[in-house]
């Protein structure tokens, strides 16, 4: 975690739901080739990169993609820890323009922690294709923070994003944030606990929670979030779980909620309802879905790809085509490579002969190491170079989730999910190749004997 702040470098956290093009924004801003993939929360450790703009240096920290800051998974915990305790100068939250309603939940939760936030509405081009138009100015007013529209893949809007990061970090652009108003019962409890937290904070000269809003901590305490108290202890050294005044006020508010029929799940429901309803209201104000044709066409294709009659045959046909192209297509470059490596091996024999190396050394280096290595490269490289681009094509077309959807019931019987079908697809093709090459070489050996 990047806690030591370089005096000149401004630390910017990059947050967002999984699959919103967060890593694309990261790469486009920093130019650093960070691996991008399509699985939820693949950025487990915080990756960081730097860029400079208008003569100032920025450190961009890519935090794991999450749906919420409730910390129910290690990824969410890591994301929350960085936003709360990593002292970022500002946080950029990347939102998927095609699915803004759900994405706003995270933005609102981040705003609860800290109001130095910039919203980056990404995938504007995709949204346009789907006939979704977003009033960015209205969104900015509703959220009380600057909003930038981008299409990171084509680079649209990134300069503006840098400008705004610069302005917010330098303090020339103010962010106001927005407050989620919860149910009345919950609100009175929050203000009660918040008061206690503020008194505690004063004792520590306001240093204890300087970047985190006490309202957020109060809410998490009422929600019985032990991970947050643990994190506060880890990062500030103050064990609020054992602070009597805080414990008392949290206990009494939980008791009063309990008396009105709200237990653990009920409290959580109220909190999430507050967030979701606010997101829904903002969404209704700022978004206009003009043309449903695209999604209707999408659904028609989906019906075709996943129906009882055609779903599985189409999938098997596609697999067959891919396997055929991979296995047959790989033969030619494989043979070429084998031939080239055999040539090199011949030269190596000559070279080792020239330097009078003992037979055991020649055997070890040439027959052992070189031959095995070249065999593996010749067999594995061409099919991989063919298969993975094809796989990427399927991913870009969005067919992979449909495979998972079609296959789920089979994998459910083995206690796993349809997503594993994709892993098995890769493993299967590798096995196929190894077995094929192995029998091939055995056969060749027999012939030569």
């Amino acid at each position: 975690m990047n806690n030591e702040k370089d005096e000149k470098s401004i630390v910017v956290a990059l947050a967002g739901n999984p699959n919103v093009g967060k890593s694309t924004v990261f790469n486009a801003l920093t130019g650093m080739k960070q691996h991008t993939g399509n699985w939820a929360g693949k950025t487990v450790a915080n990756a960081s990169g730097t860029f400079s703009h208008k003569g100032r240096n920025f450190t961009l920290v890519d935090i794991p993609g999450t749906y919420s800051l409730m910390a129910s998974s290690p990824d969410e915990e890591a994301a929350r820890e960085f936003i709360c305790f990593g002292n970022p100068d500002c946080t950029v939250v990347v939102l998927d323009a095609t699915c803004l309603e759900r994405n706003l939940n995270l933005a609102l939760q981040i705003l609860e922690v800290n109001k130095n936030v910039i919203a980056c509405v990404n995938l504007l081009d995709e949204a346009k294709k789907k006939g979704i138009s977003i009033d960015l100015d209205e969104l900015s007013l509703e959220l009380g923070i600057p909003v930038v529209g981008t299409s990171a893949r084509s680079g649209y809007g990134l300069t503006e994003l840098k400008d705004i990061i610069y302005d917010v970090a330098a303090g020339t652009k103010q962010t106001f944030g927005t407050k989620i108003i919860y149910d009345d019962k919950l609100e009175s409890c929050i203000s009660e606990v918040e008061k206690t937290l503020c008194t505690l904070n004063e004792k520590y000269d306001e240093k204890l929670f300087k970047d985190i809003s006490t309202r957020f901590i109060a809410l998490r305490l009422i929600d019985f979030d032990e991970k947050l108290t643990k994190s506060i202890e880890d990062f500030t050294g103050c064990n609020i779980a054992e602070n009597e005044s805080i414990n008392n006020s949290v206990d009494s508010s939980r008791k009063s909620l309990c008396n009105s029929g709200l237990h653990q799940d009920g409290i959580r429901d109220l909190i999430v309802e507050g967030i979701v309803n606010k997101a829904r209201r903002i969404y209704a104000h700022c978004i206009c879905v003009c043309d449903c044709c695209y999604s209707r066409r999408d659904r028609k294709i989906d019906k075709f790809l996943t129906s009882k009659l055609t779903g599985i045959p189409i999938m098997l046909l596609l697999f067959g085509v891919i396997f055929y192209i991979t296995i047959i297509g790989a033969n030619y470059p494989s043979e070429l490579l084998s031939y080239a490596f055999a040539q090199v091996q011949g030269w190596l024999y000559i070279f080792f002969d020239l330097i009078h190396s003992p037979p055991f050394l020649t055997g070890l280096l040439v027959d052992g190491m070189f031959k095995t290595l070249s065999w593996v490269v010749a067999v594995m490289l061409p099919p991989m170079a063919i298969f993975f681009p094809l796989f990427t094509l399927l991913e870009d077309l969005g067919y992979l989730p449909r495979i998972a959807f079609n296959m789920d019931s089979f994998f459910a019987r083995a206690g796993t999910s349809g997503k594993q079908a994709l892993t098995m697809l890769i493993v299967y093709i590798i096995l196929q190749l190894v077995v094929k090459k192995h029998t091939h070489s055995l056969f060749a050996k027999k012939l030569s004997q």
Partner: protein
Amino acid sequence: MDSNLLSLDNLAVGESGSVHELLSKGNLRRRMLDLGLVRGTYVESLMKSPTGKLTAYFISGAVIALRPEDARCIIINKNL
């Protein structure tokens, strides 16, 4: 009104409704809440998987597939 209440797995393809109550507990409940499934959320059943077990739903702007055992824990107020 009460006759419109049913669990999500009983919602036929093409039908829609709004969430009335979540019965799931623990981690699964959190996942559902993360998806935006709270009281009043609009849900539409889009399609079933080839084996007819998994169903894809339209939930707050996204298409999400749920297994019947998970969908059973969501009580829906069906739109007529």
